[in-house]
């Protein structure tokens, strides 16, 4: 467990020393979301209706933007080899890196989403539902994305390939996440959506680090 925490702390410290990368993907999120009203027109009712979908798709893309860097630097400078040969469990170290990715690329999206939701005319309860859905959904994006990042590590055209592999797997998260806000908007209970998101998250917490570790071992061979 201490290895897991050390892995998180290390990645957070590294991100702190090169802040621009995290901030770039946040601004990407803001810009993509802001483009939609310009593309589809400023009609309030329409914007309110598409807001959850737009925010979720933008969140998927913003997460995707940071994924190629998740393991790349450690792979190039040999740290990943050291982790694989560490007396600590490689799986826990990898899980720590995934957790750090969520703290750096997922959590800021959750915190920023209400501000952007205001631009789309969402009211306070709707913003709450949106935030909760993102809070459950963004770790899922990091976990699934890590598998793709590990599979495409050091591979030709890795970034584009990563999007191709990961985006179809993001669809359930998108459906339940955006669906929660939409159900709320339609006056329905969003509880079912949250339960399903939480179930998917539990499944991913269990399987994704394992699959990621297996993929990283293949990449290190």
């Amino acid at each position: 467990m201490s290895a897991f925490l050390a892995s998180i702390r290390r990645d957070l410290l590294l991100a702190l020393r090169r802040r621009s990368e995290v901030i770039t993907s946040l601004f990407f999120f803001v810009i993509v979301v802001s483009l939609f009203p310009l593309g589809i027109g400023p009609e309030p009712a329409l914007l309110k209706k598409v807001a959850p979908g737009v925010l979720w798709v933008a969140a998927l893309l913003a997460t995707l933007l940071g994924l190629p860097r998740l393991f790349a630097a450690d792979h190039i400078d040999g740290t990943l080899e050291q982790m694989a040969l560490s007396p600590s469990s490689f799986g826990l170290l990898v899980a720590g890196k995934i957790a750090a990715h969520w703290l750096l690329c997922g959590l800021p999206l959750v915190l920023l989403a209400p501000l952007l939701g205001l631009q789309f005319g969402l009211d306070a309860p709707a913003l709450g539902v949106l935030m909760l859905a993102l809070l459950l959904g963004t770790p899922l994006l990091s976990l699934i994305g890590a598998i793709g990042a590990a599979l495409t590590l050091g591979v030709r055209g890795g970034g584009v390939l990563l999007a191709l592999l990961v985006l179809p797997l993001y669809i359930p998260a998108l459906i339940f996440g955006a669906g929660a806000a939409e159900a709320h908007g339609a006056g329905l209970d969003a509880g079912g959506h949250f339960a399903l998101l939480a179930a998917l998250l539990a499944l991913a917490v269990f399987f994704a680090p394992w699959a990621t570790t297996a993929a990283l071992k293949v990449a290190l061979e």
Partner: protein
Amino acid sequence: MNLIQWFRFASPQSFYPLAGRMIPWFWTLAALFGIAGLWVAFFVAPTDAQQGEGYRIIFVHVPASWMSMFIYMVMAFWAGLGLALGTRLSGMMAQALAPTGALMAALSLWTGALWGKPMWGTWWVWDARLTSELILFFLYIGFIALQSAIDDPRRADKAGAILALVGVVNIPIIYFSVKWWNTLHQGSTINLTRAPSMAQTMLLGMLLMALAFWMYSIAVALTRARAIMLERERHTEWVKHAVD
């Protein structure tokens, strides 16, 4: 005893001639089932009261959809086997199956669109099945792209295997979520699954066509697997003998 036999054929060297002997049989079966299926589809099955003659495309559409899903399962099975036992043949089989699976998914989407246009006046409906099929097609493309992006075949096999297994865990989740999404958005009332009570002959035609597709898939996958074997093991003695 059985296990030992199995492992003997798990080496490309002994599988290559075996596959060569099996391929003509599967082609023959595919042709026979195909002729029978098409005959039932075009001449025996009655004209549908609501949909006229156009519905007959389901004799291609439905078997293609079935095969596209089935092949992914088989591919994941080979991939998992290869990952667990480290047999060279497994990766080759998974790689050989993927293009056929993608073809089936594409065929299913294409015929679905062709069916949709005369029936409902639109090429595409965001129906749960069509959408899942589209995502399945994406998964196949991802698998093929990942394998072809990695030069070392051993790494390509393992990476592909992990992706196929992740995909197989996700397919039911994706299918379920898309279905949920579809029922939530009551926009389209069209449902491809609610076929009019299916006549016996229609079912027979579909089954025959499914068998034809199945045999075709095996024949093509084996042919492709043989080519992959030759390519990957071209530096070995047995390939030099086999090519002579």
